[in-house]
């Protein structure tokens, strides 16, 4: 019942195509292969071919290509792994994996160094996968792929690192507040409400105004940004779980508060928090990019996705690729993290409704 409901609600739900038995038919395979192929072809045509065509046609082709590709891959995935296959989730996981691997291995790859400034190199070269600059170059002729990979390190340090720090702090405080309630909770409520009164970007701008923007001070600011939300979530989940029978049982057996918090409540609270933390990672990556875009975060020449986009703003019309390339990478990464968080949420919801 729960699964059927979920299937109706979520767009990425398993849907049977072809035979009702759920076994993939030949038609599915054909449909999937054609869709995927057409998608790749259209995207290729829109980004690299058709150099002299009107811009509108390229946009239309590009959007159609993305749509065909996602539908084709979805059908293929379901034909291969069964109707319950979550193509979007796996694509998101693969993309995050690629970004993380490249970011970690960046110093070992034959890339231009982040501070590298060529004396004379063609600027704003268009992306061409079969050249030495697969994603083109920027205003100084620096390789875009290299800068994107170096930039991803900043995004991931901020996204993953600050979320980890925020989780450690926020979960601890939230557990204590949710378990003991009373005065501790009142004080923490006051603090979180006050911190949440500042919209995220305004909060960051205010901190940047007084701290010198370095990676260290930015790290502290971003970590601080996540704490109130995590406290609230941890507290709300603690409320729910402390009323369960297993906590009562532990109390009856004479377990101390500390043991109940760490062994009974924490593991249960951690599950929803971890899946939500993916969404926090995504929003932190956006926040960092926005701050750098405003010129108040990571300062050039150090590359960050935000300041790469900001630097190319002036040539928006002449060389739109200079913005679209980093923007697409940023979008895909944020989308992927959000998708991972969504998958966790959907799984938890179906589990909860199965438990009743």
């Amino acid at each position, binding site marked *: 019942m729960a699964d059927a409901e979920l*299937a*109706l*609600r*979520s*767009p990425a*739900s398993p849907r049977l195509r072809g035979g009702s038995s759920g076994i993939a038919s030949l038609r599915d395979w054909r449909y999937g292969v054609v869709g995927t192929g057409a998608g790749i072809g259209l995207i290729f045509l829109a980004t690299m071919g058709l150099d002299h065509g009107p*811009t*509108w046609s390229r*946009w239309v082709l590009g959007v159609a290509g993305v749509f065909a590709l996602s539908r084709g891959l979805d059908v293929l995935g379901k034909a291969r792994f069964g109707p319950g296959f979550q193509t979007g989730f796996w694509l998101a996981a693969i993309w995050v994996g690629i970004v993380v691997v490249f970011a970690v291995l960046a110093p070992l790859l034959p890339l231009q160094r982040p501070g590298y400034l060529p004396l004379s190199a063609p600027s704003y070269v268009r992306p061409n996968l079969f050249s030495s600059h697969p994603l083109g170059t920027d205003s100084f002729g620096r390789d875009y792929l290299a800068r994107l990979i170096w930039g991803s390190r900043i995004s991931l340090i901020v996204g993953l690192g600050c979320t980890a720090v925020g989780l450690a702090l926020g979960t601890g405080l939230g557990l204590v507040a949710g378990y003991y309630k009373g005065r501790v909770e009142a004080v923490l*409520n*006051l*603090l979180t*409400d*006050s911190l949440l*009164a*500042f*919209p*995220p*970007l*305004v909060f960051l*701008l*205010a*901190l*940047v*105004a*007084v*701290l*010198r923007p370095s990676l260290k001070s930015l790290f502290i600011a971003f970590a601080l940004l996540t704490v109130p939300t995590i406290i609230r979530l941890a507290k709300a989940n603690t409320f729910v779980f402390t009323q369960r029978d297993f906590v009562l049982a532990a109390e009856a057996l004479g377990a101390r508060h500390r043991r109940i918090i760490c062994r009974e409540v924490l593991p249960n609270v951690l599950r929803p928090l971890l899946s939500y933390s993916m969404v926090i990672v*995504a929003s932190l990556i*956006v926040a960092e*990019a*926005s701050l750098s*875009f*405003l*010129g*108040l975060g990571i300062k050039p020449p150090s590359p960050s996705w*935000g300041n790469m*986009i900001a630097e190319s*703003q002036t040539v*928006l*019309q002449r060389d*739109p690729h200079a*913005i*679209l390339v980093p*923007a697409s990478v*940023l*979008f895909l990464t*944020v*989308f992927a993290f*959000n*998708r991972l968080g*969504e998958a966790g949420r959907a799984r938890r919801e179906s589990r909860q409704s199965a438990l009743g």
Partner: protein
Amino acid sequence: MRSASWLQTAGRRAIHLALVLFLVSAGTFSLLQFTPGDPALAILGNSATPQAVKEIDHQLGLDKPLLTQYGHWISHALTGNLGSSLVPPGGTVVSRIAQTLPVSLELTVLAVFMALLLAIPIGVWSAYREGGPFDRFFSGTSFGLLSTPGFVTGLVLALLFSLEVRAFPRSQWVRITSSQGVPSNLKHAFLPALTLALPLMAIYTRLLRADMVQTLREDYITFARSKGMPVRKVLLRYALRPSSISLITLSGVTLGALLGGTVIVETIYALPGMGQLLVTAVGDNDYPIVQGVVLIVAVSYVLLNLIVDVSYGFLDPRTRRGRR
């Protein structure tokens, strides 16, 4: 008996609110304390004479004990005096905010309006055709829009609709009170407002759809359908109103949150709003302006949330009793 408990709740809420406002203002005020080194040096540069440093210190009140400083600042703030700007265009902080606030406010209101205009039909139809192609297409689109940073949406819209197709101006702002009047103003505000509206639309659509799906399962809807009432009437008259309560609440909250969210859009489209003022002030170390804008944004957010919370009871009779 009931009125007493109601009073108690209200009293507790009022105390909580007062404390939050105190912390927010104290936090905003104490920003200056976090500056590494002397704020005056950051403003004047390292070559400043001790005389000039002293003057700035005096102007910022930094030569007095912390609590006295806060007392001065907050008592002045309450009478509408937030100090004056330290950087060339000058003027008092209040006058600078008064110049820029209308722009941000107009963008915000316009964005929420546009988002609702798009979200209501899409949400209603998605819920009615739950799981169908329309629903799945817009679920995917909403998810995509939620993952797009504001400055990316802004730049892509600017590229498409003001550079490729010259339908809307790329930048500049025409005041609503100027001689060119409302149409010109709306034309300039359209793209920035749309940039803000798209992610909002995604949030609203998802929320309305989820609530509406629940409502459509109620018995009275089945009854209305079975007696042959037209679908349009069932959806718009019977199902929409009870489903839209959390939507209305949320749009109130976002109205507050957006006031700070216009920063990016105002930078991209070069609009003379409060966000632009804040960004420039941060770059120039113009602390009084930073403090003033941050205080106004945070306080209005807290107060808007309060209004939304209170109005909740009026909108949904079911929540009037038994809350807390």
